[in-house]
């Protein structure tokens, strides 16, 4: 079965308890979000975006092996 790594940042890293997860693919962004929320119910209270290959992805995009995925809470640079 194919897998991708999910990089986890900021507040989410604390809530999930790690800076990297491994996840089975293919699946779309919306499905990844709901699988994450099922496995880590406490992340439901954290708003976050998902990036695929350094671009913020919309919910219908398919994630496949080799994609670089990251879970990004709201930015606070500057």
């Amino acid at each position, binding site marked *: 079965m194919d897998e991708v790594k999910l990089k986890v940042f900021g507040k989410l890293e604390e809530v999930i308890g790690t800076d990297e997860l491994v996840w089975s693919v293919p699946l779309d962004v919306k499905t990844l979000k709901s699988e994450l929320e099922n496995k880590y119910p406490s992340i439901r209270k954290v708003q976050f975006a998902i990036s695929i290959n350094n671009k913020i992805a919309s919910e219908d995009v398919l994630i496949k092996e080799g994609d670089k995925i990251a879970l990004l809470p709201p*930015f606070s*640079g500057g």
Partner: protein
Amino acid sequence: MTEKKKQNAFVVGPISPEFIASSIANHQSKTNVGAHSIFLGQVRADVLNDKEVLAIDYTSYVPMAEEIVHEIREAIFAKYPLSCMHIYHSLGRVEAGQICLFVFTSSPHRKEAQEACAEIVERIKSEVPVWGKEILNDDSYIWKENK
């Protein structure tokens, strides 16, 4: 003399006034430049829940952040007739009163440098994956969120 080479946007720790001075001094040879606009972000000692912010600890998803900063640079160079553009953001701990963001634009006339500088600052804050953890004076912290 347009300068578009890819630059690293991140520096470890605060951005020093001396670094800013040498960046300004480097533009004395660019005699087509008539105006520089500089924005500096400085860490505020805000009071949150009766506790004072001592510092902000910045982290980033660096490969994505560098790519986004590069896209912003290209878009701003395409939109405004700038001679130079420099963008620096801190990573790691920056104390209250120290500088964490330095945006520097130069152009023959003032409007372009000023508008480009303001637009870059807005885009950096909303589009670049950087997170600031506000360290409070009782050793607790709060994750900052840009409005």
